[in-house]
């Protein structure tokens, strides 16, 4: 499932805001969830959202004008793929909004 979050911050600023926002995001995951992340290169972020034992790998690439990426949900979650994508887009958007 592809995700896309447009922004107008330029690559460097976008990356800085993501870096700052990640730990806060991780702390606010609802009960039964966890977020781990790893930078694979300067502008590529690999995350894993764990919710109720299900692991959803998310990979984000920070581009000049948008965050692009994809996520893969386990079979059981196929019907809520869209919601998960929205959740990621929303969370990423929140991180980008905070200065």
């Amino acid at each position, binding site marked *: 499932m592809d995700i896309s979050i447009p922004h107008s911050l330029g690559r460097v600023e976008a990356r800085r805001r993501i870096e700052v926002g990640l730990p806060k995001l991780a702390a606010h995951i*609802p*009960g*039964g*969830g966890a977020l781990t992340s790893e930078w694979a290169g300067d502008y590529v972020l690999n995350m894993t959202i764990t*919710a*109720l*034992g*299900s692991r959803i790998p998310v990979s984000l690439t920070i581009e000049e004008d948008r965050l692009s990426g994809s996520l893969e949900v*386990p*079979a*059981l*979650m*196929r*019907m*809520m793929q869209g*919601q*998960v994508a*929205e*959740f990621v887009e929303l969370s990423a958007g929140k991180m980008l909004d905070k200065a």
Partner: protein
Amino acid sequence: MQVYTAPLRDMRFVLNELHQDDGFGGLSVHEEFTTDLTDAVLEEAAKLCQDVLLPINLSGDAEGCRYENGVVRTPKGFKEAYDQFVQSGWGGLVMPVEYGGQGLPEAVGKLVEEMICATNVSFSLYPGLTAGAVTALNAYASEELKAAYLPKMISGEWSGTMNLTEPHCGTDLGLLRTKAEPVGDGSYKLTGSKIFISAGEQDLTSNIIHLVLARLPDAPKGVKGISLFLVPKFLPDEAGNPGARNGVRASGIEHKMGIKASATCQMQFDEAIGWLVGEPHRGLEAMFTMMNAERVGVGIQGLGIGEAAYQSAVWYAKDRLQGRSLSGAKYPDKAADPIIVHPDVRKNLLTMRAYNEGCRALGAWVARGLDAEKHATDPEVRQRAEDFVALMTPVVKALFTDLGHDSASLAVQVYGGHGYIHESGVEQYQRDARIAMIYEGTNGIQALDLVGRKLGAHMGRYLRSFFHPVSAFIEENKGEGPMQKMIEGLEKAFGALQLSTATIAEKGMKDAEEAGAAASDYLRLLGLVGMAYCFAKSTKIAGLQLFFGTEDKAFYETKIKTATFFFEKILPQATTHFLAIKAGKGALMAFAEDEF
């Protein structure tokens, strides 16, 4: 009052969300059936059942069928309802497209069946028996016979029946006596009597196509000498329309405890002309292939009634004002509180609810297996689906009908004294539900089929299709987290099931009576674990939906509460059955016959 609104949200849940990870492919196997399309089908079906079938349910039970000189009249409104039913194409919903059916998957078909049975079980038997006859003909009849009969049966213009039982033989079909003599031109003359033939005669269709089990002149004794024949009420003329009257007639109808609007006939075959379906002497085989699909259908009857009984009971519990809540008046401005405030009433209601949702979830999984065994492209998946359906068919049939009847009885209880009165509508549910525990193989027979045939088949391979997914789910979701308690409960019940399986396999190999003694407890235990697995998965999905944000919060939150109820109040029964199995056959067989 008979209250019913099809539980479409729960149906869509089990159809689209719950079983995505079972590897059966499901609806994606039929690419043209999008969720939008199937959701629309369910909605339309709901409307038909609620608006057309439900209103004639109670009246049909009151009036019953009438027999006059070989003619059987169905109750008022049934003919119109039937016409509307077939004109909208509901008769051929899951039937093959090449003969005019809609080719929908069973995953959808069984949900539609549930709605029909919830609103009018008697009515469901007319198209239901036809569907059984169509399945048998489609699998075994010659192309010629199929071309001549299937299109009109699938469209509903003609109906079908299954003629097996005779006065002296039901379970033991090897004893049957109906004879078939070859005429010489490829047709046969059948002579004999059959009883308990649903829809054997009726005033809904212009022709009735009877499938009849009979013996050929040179047939070996016992079950290896039975052949299957097609015997129409009216022999088709050259144009394929009903022509000459054939030598088959109803000699009377039964006056039954329930399903009174279903015409259960005694049939006489008097040199009636018929044609062989399939190979000589292999009629029982043909019948049994069809019976497996029918058995799942009978299970759905139980589920449908259970849902209708629940909704009717809920309506009454909210409406009926009696006494006050144990924790203080909840509606002080009313004369009394509705009885739904009471824990004991809630217990009855929620038991029904848990049974219904658990069976619906389990049934949806088995329906996906029915589709996958026919349509999956991967032969390994097809094999696994076949194994799964073989294993679960007796469970669906016996569990769903037992629980459906329990729900109906609980509904009567909730209604109190009024429940016992015909006009209230709920006692009809109990009477209608009772037969499902008996026909298509009594529930005792289902249990024996499970432990005697299915458990040991292919060194126990069928078991894998159930045990492995459940075991994997437990392993994946064990440990801390919101689901911890539920998984522990599931693990405990699953462990009891594993031990019981080993016990029965070991003891049963040396002594068939040990298997027989444990059979019905084992079937119930397997059913409980199956429902628990479905409820645990439902909880996980609901939890994930709530986690990621959904507009449908209420549905998922309530689902979790129903699941919690099931785990806390119903699943502990697993221990009971496990202990009973462990105890063995001793207490049963210790009695000499004259001590009874």
